[in-house]
């Protein structure tokens, strides 16, 4: 499968002409544990544009999930601002639909179709008829038409995530927030889901903010990657990855980018090791 790009190499995106859909400026996020206040991210800034597949990438503990929760409105920044379409984010809302990693995000007392319809009805965005029509369309998009009257406990993990994606997409949110949605799946299913997600993006060109700790997944799924340093999360780099999908996985460029990001994430460790070696050599 090849992924057509909204902007090819021919035409560099002119960021000054577009205004960003989501703008995160100098955001510091903190959360409380029982004993400490932990800084999850420190002065992180990035802009997400229309139809971006924007990936937040970093090792665990880099605050990428916190950042996503911040954008979703579950966490207020202690410093900095987050704006969606020029409006400051201050609470959760259905204009930013979230797909979680956990399989229990579906309501177990509702069938697949009712689950997909639920946010449309709960937010008062659609009439029942409209919601049903949309739900069926998006359930069909994720190839679950046969299972639309089934309850979540009868579905496999991959199917549950597909329902969650359909549920989020049917709302046609301004931005789709995905918190490691494929992390709990087996490798084969994960690959299939990544392909399907890219195909869905091909069809509808939604904007998404995707969190992952897998470098490979970031390169395949993302069109732009924000690399975060560990604890507290700070911006290391913002890279382009729109030229890569599964088909390019064997290419040397793909490998080179993987290696580059890998070095970025583990640079500190390498430096430490180098220092230790140098110290040992001198000593």
């Amino acid at each position, binding site marked *: 499968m090849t992924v057509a790009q909204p902007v090819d190499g021919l035409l560099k995106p002119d960021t000054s002409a577009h205004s960003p859909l989501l703008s995160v400026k100098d955001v510091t996020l903190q959360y409380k544990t029982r004993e400490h206040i932990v800084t999850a991210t420190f002065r992180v800034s990035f802009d997400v544009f229309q139809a971006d597949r924007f990936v937040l990438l970093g090792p665990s503990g880099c605050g990428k999930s916190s950042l996503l929760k911040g954008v979703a409105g*579950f966490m207020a920044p202690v410093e900095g601002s987050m704006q969606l379409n020029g409006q400051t984010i201050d609470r959760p809302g259905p204009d*930013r639909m*979230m797909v979680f990693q*956990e399989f229990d995000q579906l*309501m177990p007392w509702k069938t697949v179709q009712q689950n997909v319809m639920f946010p449309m009805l*709960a*937010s008062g965005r659609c009439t029942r008829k409209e919601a049903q029509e949309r739900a069926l369309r998006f359930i069909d998009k994720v190839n679950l038409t046969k299972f639309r009257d089934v309850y979540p406990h009868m579905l496999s993990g991959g199917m549950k995530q597909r329902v969650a994606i359909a549920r989020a997409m049917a709302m046609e949110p301004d931005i789709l927030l995905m918190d490691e949605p494929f992390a709990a799946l087996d490798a084969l299913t994960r690959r299939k889901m990544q392909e399907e997600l890219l195909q869905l993006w091909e069809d509808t060109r939604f904007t998404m903010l995707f969190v992952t700790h897998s470098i490979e997944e970031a390169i395949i799924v993302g069109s732009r990657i924000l690399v975060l340093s560990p604890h507290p999360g700070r911006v290391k780099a913002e890279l382009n990855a729109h030229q890569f999908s599964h088909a390019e996985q064997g290419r040397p460029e793909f490998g080179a980018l993987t290696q580059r990001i890998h070095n970025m994430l583990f640079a500190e460790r390498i430096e430490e090791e180098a220092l230790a070696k140098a110290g040992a050599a001198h000593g």
Partner: protein
Amino acid sequence: MASASPITPLVRPEFEHATVEAGQIGEVERPLSTWERLTNIEWVRKAAILITLAVIWEAYARYVGNELTFPTLVQTMQALWDSTVSGPLLERTFTSLKVLLTGYALGLFIAAVFTTIAVSTRIGTDLLSTLTAMFNPLPAIALLPLALLWFGLGTPSLVFVIVHSVLWAVALNTHTGFLAVSETQRMAGMNYGLRGVRYVLKILIPAAFPSILAGLKIGWAFAWRPRLVHLREPQSA
């Protein structure tokens, strides 16, 4: 023990098969037998248990042959029929049920108020758990003398005791159920823009429903216990 030369796995030739058509495998699925399907129905199994118990009862009572200490099933049914048709049984049952349902409904209402306070504030949570720890183990019967002193001999005392036995069980279970709703489901609900009462009605209550139902069942069972006292009351009075 490690031998001198390490064992290496035997290298075997590779092969690939064309998959056999599923149709040729023969039996892929088969309907269950009538017996299996029948025993899968719950009421059939329960009816079987009841019939077995009835047979044992009747057989043992006939073997004992003393209708004063151990009447047979047939005799018992006869007595039930007689007091239903010509005796006061129906009327008394009705009065009893009325008191029971009043107490149950009142208990549920107070439990709902308590749980609402408990889910919305931290001090409410502490209040509920402290009160539950204090009153839940207290047997309703133990409160009856006190209730009689406060409300006199009659329905209010009984309602009070029933409320006491229903309230704590239901409040405790409902609250536990609310606390057990997964963080993901809560966030999903808030993500849809649900807040306040709608959030409780559309997310918390359905998600905690198994616990709430368990609480209602326990409350219902507890509500019957003080009723046994009442059933004897007209005789002693």
